[in-house]
């Protein structure tokens, strides 16, 4: 380490570590210690109960579908926002971040009202035999909303920096527009799009507020994993809630590791001078 004349290292690092330990690491440690008190046999029994397995499956499946929708449509939106001019473009561009800023409960009641059987979109869809609110499809809609900004905001800067001479070269070599996109543009933006997909997926797995209003919350059918934790807490089943929370925490850690790896990979692949710490890129708000 190079000696720096800048002061305050001890003070700021010390404060950062204390604050982090007290507010984040200590509560997390408490969770693992409480889990260890449950005992392995009991723990396994709780976390592999059919109702718990159905809840993880639903949280994973719905997040996966929502993230996949955002992978395709988010890439398309990023492309349209970077490459074309059209009325109200800047307004729409700013609105893409709405799901980061809008409280999840507000999003939840708004989506439920729209997709309820008597709602603006729910009624015409119900006439077609498609029921959205209070079904699994509703959960996918909520998680698509929540994950919307991620792919757009990861792909957009890469697309802006993409050298268009590559596309000219492809065109002059006889490639069609779709072929150029498939072979030249897509490989360049794919790491960013996959990172965005993973971020949207990770966000969806833990999402609670926007989902519970639209989900219907029927055990085994439309009960997401975070809701199962809340239900167990309300029944004063602390070991049950803690065990499922531990599974969710382990999943979060695994996803965080995977996403860090992805960001390193996409940082290494993109042409621009990526910062050496992948995590130093501007924040994408999650949680809620």
């Amino acid at each position, binding site marked *: *380490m*190079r000696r720096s*004349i*800048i002061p305050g290292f001890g*003070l*700021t*690092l010390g*404060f950062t*570590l204390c*604050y982090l330990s007290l*507010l*984040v690491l200590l*509560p997390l440690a*408490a*969770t693992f*210690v*409480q889990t260890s008190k449950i005992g392995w046999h009991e723990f396994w029994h709780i976390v592999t109960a059919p109702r718990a397995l159905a809840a993880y499956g639903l949280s994973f499946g719905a997040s996966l579908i929502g993230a996949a929708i955002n992978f395709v*449509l988010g890439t*398309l*939106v990023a*492309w*349209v926002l970077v490459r074309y001019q059209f009325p109200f473009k*800047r307004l729409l561009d700013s*609105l893409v*971040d709405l799901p980061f*800023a*809008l*409280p999840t*409960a*507000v999003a939840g009641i*708004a*989506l439920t009202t729209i997709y309820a059987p008597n709602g603006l*979109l729910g009624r015409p869809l119900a006439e077609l035999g498609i029921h959205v609110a209070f079904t699994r499809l509703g959960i996918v809609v909520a998680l698509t909303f929540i994950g919307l900004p991620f792919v757009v905001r990861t792909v957009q800067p890469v697309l802006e920096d993409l050298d268009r001479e590559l596309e*000219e070269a492809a*065109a*002059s070599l006889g490639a069609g527009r779709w072929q*150029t996109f498939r072979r030249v543009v897509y490989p360049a933006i794919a790491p960013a799009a996959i990172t965005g997909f993973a971020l949207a997926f990770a966000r969806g797995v*833990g999402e*609670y*507020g926007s989902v519970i*209003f639209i989900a219907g919350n029927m055990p085994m059918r439309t009960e997401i994993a*975070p809701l199962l934790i*809340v239900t167990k*807490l309300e029944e004063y089943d*602390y070991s049950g*809630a*803690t065990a499922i*929370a531990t599974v*969710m925490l382990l999943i*979060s850690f695994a*996803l*965080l590791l995977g996403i860090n790896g992805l960001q390193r990979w996409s940082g290494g692949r993109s042409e621009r001078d990526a*910062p050496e*710490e992948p*995590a130093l890129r*501007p*924040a994408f708000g*999650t*949680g*809620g």
Partner: protein
Amino acid sequence: MPASLAPAISESPLVKWLLIGVSVLFLGVFLLVPLGCIFAVAFGHGVLAYLTTFRDPDTLSSIRLTLLAALIAVPCNLVFGVAAAWAIGKFEFFGKSLLISLVDLPFSISPVVAGLTYVLLFGSHGWFGGWLAAHNVQIIFAVPGIVLATIFVTFPFIARELLPMMSAQGNDEEEAALTLGANGWQTFFKVTLPNVKWALLYGVILCNARAMGEFGAVSVVSGHIRGLTDTMPLQIEVLYNDYQFVPAFAVASLLALLALATLVVKSAVEWRSAVVERGTK
């Protein structure tokens, strides 16, 4: 580029407008319709019904509690964010990338799990539960728990906005100021702060929006005591589940306005930093 190549590297108008159409439809259905719905329902029975909502004492107390929680959580995370960004952005040390990942950790934890960790720490069955009960201190199902849960979920926001700015700016200007005899605080307030003020402003606004809107974590620790431990998002849930749609959406409209204000500030900050960037090139 030569005119002859132009069609080859751009799409036909038909494809172009089709792609724009699909994008606008997607954003319209998923963003504009929900946003419009909030205000349409809130004002669905007229302005008077909308305003009457804010006479309800429980609603008013939820607004006060939300303001109080944000008023404590945001300054705490502001001090932390500045300290963390200074330590991580201005110095090289062992374990730096691990520390960055740890600062990010609350982003990837489900808010419900975040709330539960505090229940396990301070609740009646928790680590400190016995001690707290003996000393007559209540954290869970009371205001301190709500503040703690809010701090946890909004923990990384300000640090994350400041970090890239602080490390991108380098140390040259600060070193110059120190060499010229400024002390550490002077250097921070006169040199560093003006350079990062827009990122700081956006971080604070975003942190505040999330603090006021947090639902999952606060819901677990609040205990839902009406008029006492219900924040605005929890009050929205209570009203909505009571089929009081106008009041529920009226409270929601306040939070939606806050979200829109956050987006406006974000656009302004991005516009400003683009101008600054162009100016330095």
